């Protein structure tokens, strides 16, 4: 009798779990137009959340039909007609691939890395590349906490740092719990800004990729993104609040070090991109790609639904 109850419970729970797993996902439909996705100016390139593939829309009508490619990425970034796709390459363990593509999204090279895809960025001329992945289970205290791995690759000199955690930071001890993420390059293809997390705090750092050194500029700043004119950095700043994504996007003037909160009040967990010197764009989970003015005025507006990881082809 007791055995029968257990058998029935196994069947009932098994059926319930299977039904739950297989239940149809909320179907979404987006307008798609035929045509190749190319990294040419005037297009907003992004990851289509319906298919998981790289897609593009004209910047002039971002809400219109999209072109979808066959390239699957978790994160995509384009600059100077080149693309960097951070794709999921998991086996039983989480893994990623940094895939470099040309103007027509054909693969040019591939770097396999461990961890879950998170951030990808190229310098303005496409020479410097950086990506960040999350790796679990290497904390001293408990299995299950996170660390980041951030790589910088110079595609011209082929100098490759698979993890920049050894970077010297002025005035800071070389501790074990240091994590870097979210690199953004300046036009000199050497200086970069990034996030450093250590001892429970985050810092905006300015680094030198060639010297492997850096200095902290200010506290509480994550995922910097440099404006096209190189004078301002957009970043997310941790604010008090319950819940996931407790961040508010700010723009920091690098000459005056004055920061301005932006009109977007929802928590942005993204390394934003600059559409031009006055506007930033970013993804919100489940809500698509949005844009807001970089001077703290105006109101956020949706650019593309069911999309993430925006970037634009400049020039």
């Amino acid at each position: 009798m007791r055995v029968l109850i257990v058998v029935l419970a196994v069947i009932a729970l098994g059926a319930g779990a299977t039904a739950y797993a297989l239940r149809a996902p909320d179907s979404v439909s987006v307008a798609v137009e035929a045509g190749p996705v190319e990294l040419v100016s005037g297009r907003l390139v992004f990851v289509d959340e319906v298919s998981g593939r790289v897609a593009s829309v004209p910047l002039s009508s971002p809400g219109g039909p999209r072109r979808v490619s066959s390239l699957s990425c978790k994160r995509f970034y384009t600059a100077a007609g080149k693309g960097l796709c951070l794709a999921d390459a998991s086996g039983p363990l989480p893994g990623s691939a940094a895939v470099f593509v040309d103007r027509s999204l054909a693969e040019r090279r591939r770097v396999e890395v461990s961890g879950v895809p998170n951030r990808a960025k190229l310098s303005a001329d496409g020479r410097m590349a950086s990506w960040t992945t999350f790796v679990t289970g290497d904390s001293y205290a408990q299995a299950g906490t996170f660390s980041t791995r951030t790589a910088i690759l110079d595609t011209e000199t082929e100098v490759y740092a698979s993890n920049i955690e050894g970077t010297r930071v002025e005035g800071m001890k070389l501790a074990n719990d240091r994590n870097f993420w979210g690199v953004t390059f300046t036009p000199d293809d050497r200086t970069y800004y990034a996030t450093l997390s250590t001892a429970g705090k985050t810092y905006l750092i300015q680094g030198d990729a060639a010297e492997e050194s850096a200095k902290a500029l200010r506290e509480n700043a994550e995922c910097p993104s440099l404006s096209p004119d190189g004078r301002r950095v957009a970043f997310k700043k941790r604010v008090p609040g319950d819940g996931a994504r407790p961040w508010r996007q700010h723009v920091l003037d690098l000459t005056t070090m004055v920061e301005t909160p932006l009109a977007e009040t929802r928590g942005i967990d993204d390394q934003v991109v600059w559409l031009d010197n006055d506007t930033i764009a970013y993804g919100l989970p489940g809500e698509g790609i949005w844009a807001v003015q970089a001077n703290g005025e105006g109101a956020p507006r949706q650019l593309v639904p069911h999309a993430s990881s925006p970037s634009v082809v400049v020039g």
Partner: protein
Amino acid sequence: MYIATARQAPAAGGTGRIAGNVLALGAVSLLTDVSSEMVTAVLPLYLVLGLGFSPLQFGVLDGIYTGVTALVRVVGGHAADRWQRRKFVAGLGYGISALGKLGLLAAGTSATAMGLVLAGDRTGKGLRTAPRDALITLSSEPSALGRAFGVHRAMDTVGAFLGPLAAFCLLWTLPARYDVVFVVSFCFAALGFLVLVLFVRDHRDVLPRVAVSLRAAFGLLRSRPFRRVCLVACGLGFLTLGDGFVYLLLQKKLDVELAYVALLPLGTAGVYLLAAVPLGSLADRVGRWRIFLAGHVALFGAYLLLAGASGISLLVGVLVLHGVFYACTDGVLMAVAGPLVPDELRTSGLALLQTGQVLARAASSVLFGALWTWFAW
């Protein structure tokens, strides 16, 4: 019908049959461990990638939880003894943890709700361990206790082995469906709870109903042999490096990819799983205390290897010794302590011992963690 036959007609010692109650508790632990290890394996991914929490947001809370579970463990042990309802208290613990799996889905993106769910899960774990181990001691022939615990811990470890595997296979076939992992995890926990309710028998009728007070529970420490066991276990616990730390040192010395650190605990678990029953039986024959201390010698050997050896001998040696350490100590310590405590205070006594051990380990992990963080070794 709660006629406890196991104690009146006990399984024959040494190599005899293992009591049905122990096997039932082993099955409950197996199912529950599949459930909890599934969640442990994917929780960081879910929190950080699924919900967008900061990677550092949750590590901080761990110390607080340890304090909470320590308190819950003592109170739960006391309640189990006072009403002589070990099965009920254990069931409460298993039940809370099972519901916690659904709580993970319900908590959504609120950090407070998520913290409460995780605290509830720890509370469940704190509640169930001592009454479960007390039931094992009360259901087994005293001369075969080591073996009984060996069987239970081996079954428990099978669950710990299968859990992460199941979780990653699910995520592999259904990418980013953390919710499915939680639902499947809940199913395993619910099955474990059901097996407990249907197959595990309590022993409340056999025992004398004496006054059981918290004071009596702490009074156990006045007994010299029990006090000695507690002091030595806590002392050794304080000198023990946390598992994560051992794996991290191993990773640094072998220079393997960080991602593969997740696989190292499987090595330890595999050895533990194979060695638990033989070493438990051996403990019954040559002395459990001796085996418990020998386990720490094995652990010390693992530390020596970490300091000196390299290559494959380092990897295999450390994992084998680490697994042997667990097989010699975890269940064996309960088998040592059980007979030293009167039946009616069994749960309180084991809870006290486990709490001391947990706090000693937590203190040691905080200390080593601070050293690790501030000195870049």
